[in-house]
């Protein structure tokens, strides 16, 4: 696969790892503590686990898995709203696959579907619009979630609906913006992050300028990074180069996809359809000002929030959950009291166990072999007859 396989080359990966190792030796801070590098995007988290990247890095580097998994940070109350809409008669509720499993306070969309709601998985919001076209007697709702990467697709779909005069389509808008989340993390007390891997696909939409504050105001390097494993190693190396030379700049590792200025037509569509909310609730991080968008008044008739009455409850995260600390890099997933005990991929309590891109779910599923096996493997192979799988979830 072009533009994919070249960026998974093991020899180049080995070279990069050696370069990274050499740089770590030059950075004084590493002598007393690990270097904390946050990958903001859940796609990075996924790739890091999928390719076992942490197992290749020197001990001195700790990757902190940031808030960029929109499925994870979606508050429970919003899932309840989805379920309420989906259970409304004559509604076809459409969603991306991975949002189906996210638990609400009483059920997930998968469970709502099992209970008879017409919930359908689609690949694109445009497919949802096609369903509306084909089912004029039904109200078709698309569950819009995701960061700026995904916003253009839903905005353009709404514009398309308007152009075609399709009235039985609406968007349940839960889009969030990455910049306020990064800022909230940098402002949180006790946070120790030395540099960032910036979200490549968000950046191809918004460009590189919005990150300037990370370098200017917080003096941290940020490297906009692609999603293939070589991209990630390269991004880490670029962050370390800055740290080694005492610099803090915004750099673009992913120049094959990310133009400095972002994507004009995409930004235009976003601005046309959406406006900032005063605040938005994030699971694990709480309320963050101006961190979400809603639909403008002009598109009210395509706004599921206005079209349907939803419970709109704020449901607090369980008290014992330490997702916030994990998101900020203060603790690792396995340091949380709930990890693997009460909070497992099957019965997630915290945001980060919910989606496979969440740090805790990724740790639970893929693990970092040398660190996790002793932790999870307790009792495995002792012939107790207990399925060792249970031990994965309940060490």
């Amino acid at each position, binding site marked *: *696969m072009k533009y994919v396989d070249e960026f998974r080359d093991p020899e180049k990966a080995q*070279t990069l790892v050696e370069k990274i190792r050499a740089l770590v030796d030059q950075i004084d801070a590493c002598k007393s503590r690990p270097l904390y590098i946050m990958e903001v995007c859940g796609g990075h988290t996924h790739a890091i686990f999928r390719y076992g990247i942490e197992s290749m890095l020197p001990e001195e580097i700790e990757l902190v898995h940031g808030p960029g998994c929109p499925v994870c940070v979606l508050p429970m109350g919003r899932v309840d709203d989805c379920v309420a809409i989906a259970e409304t008669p004559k509604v076809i509720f459409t969603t991306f696959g991975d949002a189906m499993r996210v638990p609400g306070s009483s059920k997930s969309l998968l469970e709502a579907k099992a209970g008879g709601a017409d919930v359908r998985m689609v690949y694109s919001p445009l497919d949802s619009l096609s369903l509306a076209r084909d089912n004029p007697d039904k109200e078709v709702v698309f569950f819009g979630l995701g960061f700026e990467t995904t916003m253009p697709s839903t905005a353009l779909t709404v514009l398309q609906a308007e152009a075609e005069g399709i009235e039985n389509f609406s968007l349940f808008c839960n889009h969030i913006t990455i910049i306020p989340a990064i800022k909230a993390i940098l402002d949180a007390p006790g946070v120790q992050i030395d540099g960032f891997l910036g979200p490549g696909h968000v950046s191809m939409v918004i460009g590189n300028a919005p990150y300037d504050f990370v370098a200017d105001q917080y003096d941290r390097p940020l490297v906009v990074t692609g999603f293939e494993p070589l991209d990630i190693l390269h991004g880490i190396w670029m962050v370390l180069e800055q740290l080694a030379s005492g610099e803090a700049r915004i750099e673009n590792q992913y120049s*094959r*996809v990310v133009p400095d200025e972002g994507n004009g037509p995409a930004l235009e569509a976003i601005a046309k359809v959406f406006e900032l909310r005063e605040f938005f609730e994030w699971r694990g991080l709480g309320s963050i000002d101006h961190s979400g968008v809603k639909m403008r008044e002009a598109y009210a008739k395509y706004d599921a929030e206005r079209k349907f009455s939803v419970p709109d409850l704020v449901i607090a995260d369980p008290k014992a959950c330490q997702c916030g600390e994990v998101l900020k890099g203060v603790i690792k997933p396995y340091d949380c009291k709930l990890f693997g005990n009460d909070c497992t991929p099957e019965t997630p309590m915290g945001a980060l166990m919910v989606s496979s891109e969440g740090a805790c779910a990724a740790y639970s599923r893929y693990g970092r072999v040398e660190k996790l096996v002793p932790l999870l493997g307790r009792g495995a192979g002792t012939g107790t007859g207990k399925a060792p799988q249970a031990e994965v979830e309940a060490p």
Partner: protein
Amino acid sequence: MCLGIPGQIVEITNTADKLAKVEVAGVKREINLVCIVDEDHSIESCVGDWVLVHVGFAMSRIDAAEAAATLELLHALGEVDEELDAMRGSGQT
């Protein structure tokens, strides 16, 4: 988040709505090109282009020169090492 994958535009399917077939390793899907066409890139000229596909939209045209430059840089990193190794090797003998 934001799963995106490189694909090649193989056919324009609807000029008015800016729709095209894109191919990823033998898998084809109709996607929307609105975000990557402008005065410099007419819809017709997109056939053959590689784009980053996300939820049914082409979100960016992949810049072949930049991709090559990144790979070249990564390759050069290894080369320097080999030269150094060679120099060290010759120094020892």
